[in-house]
């Protein structure tokens, strides 16, 4: 395979995807999924994850 992705990019992607999975899929989701939370909070959490991904890209873990 040609020009493999840099190790840094791969590690950062693993880390960030893992952190995002914790927020979304683990019991930690109860923090943002309480009955008294505003209805739009899941969308804000989602948006925050995307902003983080964009910042990660710009910080060097981005395009090859």
């Amino acid at each position, binding site marked *: 395979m*040609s020009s*493999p992705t840099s190790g840094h990019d791969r590690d950062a992607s693993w880390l960030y995807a893992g952190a995002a999975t914790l927020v979304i899929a683990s019991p930690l989701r109860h923090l943002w999924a309480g009955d008294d939370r505003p209805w739009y909070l899941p969308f804000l959490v989602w948006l925050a994850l995307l902003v983080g991904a964009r910042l990660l890209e710009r910080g060097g873990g981005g395009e*090859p």
Partner: protein
Amino acid sequence: MTLGILGAATFAYWLLLFLVAYLAERGRMPARLRHHPLVYALSLGVYASTWTYYGSVGFARHEGFSFLTVYLGPTLACLAIPVIWLPILRLTREHQLTSLADLFAFRYRSQLAGVLVTFVMLAGSVPYLALQFRALLESMRVLSGQSPLWLGIGFTLVLTLFAVLFGARGASPRERHDGLLFVVALESLVKLAALLAVGAVAYFGVLGGPRGLGDYFRQQPDAVASLYRPVREGPWGTYLLLSFSAAFLLPRQFHVAFAEHVEDRALFSARVTFPLYLLMLNLAVVPVLWAGTRLHPGGSADFYVLDVSRASGSSLLTILAFIGGISSGSAMVIVTAIALASMCMNHLLLPAGLRLRERNLYQTLAWMRRVLIALVVFAGYGFYRLALHRTRPLVDFGLISFVTVAQCLPGLLGVLFWRRATGLGLSLGLFAGFAVWFAALAAPLFGAPDSAHWWSLVGGNEPFFPATFLSLAVNGLLFVGASLLRQPSAEEREAARVCCDEPGSASRPVGPIASPDELRARLALLLGEAAAERETSRALATLGMAATEKRPAELRRLRAGLERNLSALFGPLIARLVVEESQRVDPAAAPRLGDRLQSLEEQLRALPRPLEGTASELELFWRYLRDVLEDLPLGVCALAADGTVVIWNHALGAIAETASQAVRGCTLDRIGEPWGALFARFLATSERTEQATVVVGDERRALQLSKSRLSAGAQLGGWVLLVEDRTVARALEEQLIHQDRLASIGQLAAGLSHELGNPLTGITCVAQNLRDDLTDLETRERVQQILDLARRIDAIVRTLLSFSRAGAGQSAAATMSRVGVGDAVREAIALVHIVPRNRQIEMLNRCSDELTLDGDRQRLIQVLVNLLANACDASPPGGQVEVTSDQADGRVRIAVSDRGRGMTPNVRRRVFEPFFTTKDPGAGTGLGLSLVYNIVRDHGGEVALESVLGAGTVVTVELPAAKEPAAMSERTP
């Protein structure tokens, strides 16, 4: 709203799509627009089908915010683009793979794997296609109250036509379909715009904005809590896992994400833009749900989107909402049909024995794909008509498909991360997982008793968590267990290394192919003349290779290129079979040592990260030994036991004027003359060393060859040959012999002239006395002739004596004197005429006696003798050599010209080099012109040479003219 209006709107919308696709396909749109990364991200939006457009609201009603999992899964998948998507993209691009079935068949070297994946995908996709037809036709029924049969058939025909026109233009699905991609991206925008518009109406119109929403919450206090509850209690994780895998495993996702000539840049751009698109698409779901509940509390939430749009009272919004649904369904059906057709073709039809040697192979393949596309679309519609359970929510059919597709997740992880995985493990796991899926989810669709009581055993009160858990657990366990039971085959190991981005083993052996043309001829036996010609030319053009290429390494690249191109047409396994069959290579044959060595070098160069520990030390040591061999000032040629060249170092490359790349991997009989024959003959003798003379270009080279058989300890055997270029040393030896001979001749001449001098003086004195005493005129005249002849003999003897002294290296003792050019030329001609052959050449002295030089007379005569002798050698018997002179700017120019055979540019360049000669061995030393050059340079002059092959040569010597007599004094140089 009437059926006519909806039909007209649909027709107009599709007309627009056809037009846009046509313009994009024909390049009538700017390339920057067509290839913009955003187009790629939006085309990934094909993920959002009618399930998203209509079904999300229904899903949200039953399972609250669980509907978001269907989009949060792809979001997580996109965050892992560098570790999952990018390796898949590079594999599919490098090996021209068009589908997941291709990828599995390539990695697991198993046709069965390809067949199983195709079946799994078909089984998972046909109900999903049916779901689109159901949503499209029911949306028509919701708005107009009718949905006639012909409408469904019309939908099917139009979608088939679009897929065929813009997705199956040629024989290969790897061709870029700009029109298709652009339209899919456009449809993503249309459904987003429609949903946001309906969401805005729901929020601001039906619910009354923030204040109205507050009132709604007071009326429905459980509205928000009922959304959040399933997040904590429902099968949240299961849905996330299913949608995570569906994001890149669904046939339509795989096709758009990897098979459409995607660039890395576009993929990375989609990392955020695609999830952002999904987020925006879902913003409207909750407001539409609440608005729909307020409008039709007891109605089907699956079509709240249409209900809300109708409640706005705007026909335009209703039509937009309806068109949004059409765009969601049509894009999904079209891309899925194209992707499934490609799988069916490569893994069901072609392996089933299709004859590839068709008259027009490409047209046949293209038509087969078109027919398969039509069959897939009609299968979806047929499933909807015959089997689709109309009372179940839309989301159920989508989730059933997701569970099927998820069965490929263990296999894909094996492709990317587990080298030990085998085709057997994959097939067993896939089959078992599929069986569980069928029993748990598919069979109830066809009326089998629901197995709800089973689910309680594994802790589920709904089917998807237990079905997913059980099917993936059985699948994964069998996959791992069976893979560990049996060692992977050599082919599996090789493919695993390629897929896991690790150094592979040696490349496969190249069959007995001597040229691209021969490869083309053999390919023609399998594919037909036209296809073989086209594929070979395409591979040559892609690789920038000449049709006359014969180097084994390049032929290996050509084979790999051909295999890649054919893989796009037939799939990886059939392409491999075709290429191997065309070369008649035994797949089990061990690669040649040269190939293994070269492959190892390539892999070490391409290592993604440096080796560590002992491997690193070994690599360093190996590089050191290789450099020693390569930089040895002796030519080294190592031959493997099968007679192929393994090592051909730089020195041998310089001696033979043949680069290592041209001969490595070749047997001796395929190496150009004279080397192959020379080495083969030498290896056949019992001598360990041998002297040989070869002609390389225009030059004769003296070589010393040595050989040694490699010890058995190397386990590889073979020979090593040393080649030493002894041309210069041999010439020096010959020069020494020549100098000795000249010195002997000089001594002989000196002795002879001394011995002849006395009697000659006596003869001259006696003849003079006799002439003076005689009175008879006739007798006096005869005696005078005797005197003239005696003086001539004396002149010859003196000249011979002086020349032999000069040739014996006595120039240092010579003195400077005034030399007449005409006189010197005459003397040189007399000397050259001593050789009998030279007397056949007419020598014309056209030099003026008035021109004079200051210099060592004997050495200058030697210059002229050498030039005249060369001119005579180059001239045929009866030829003419002319010597002319002139003076200008204080310089005298003497030109010796002949009309002989002339010289080649190569000879002309090297003619003044010491020991360079074109004469036969023993006929010349190669020092004549070198001596000329040195003598002339010692006299402050220059030598120039002009020669035309076949027309003759002119050598011009330019020397300073003699100074005024007063300034002239005798000195030593």
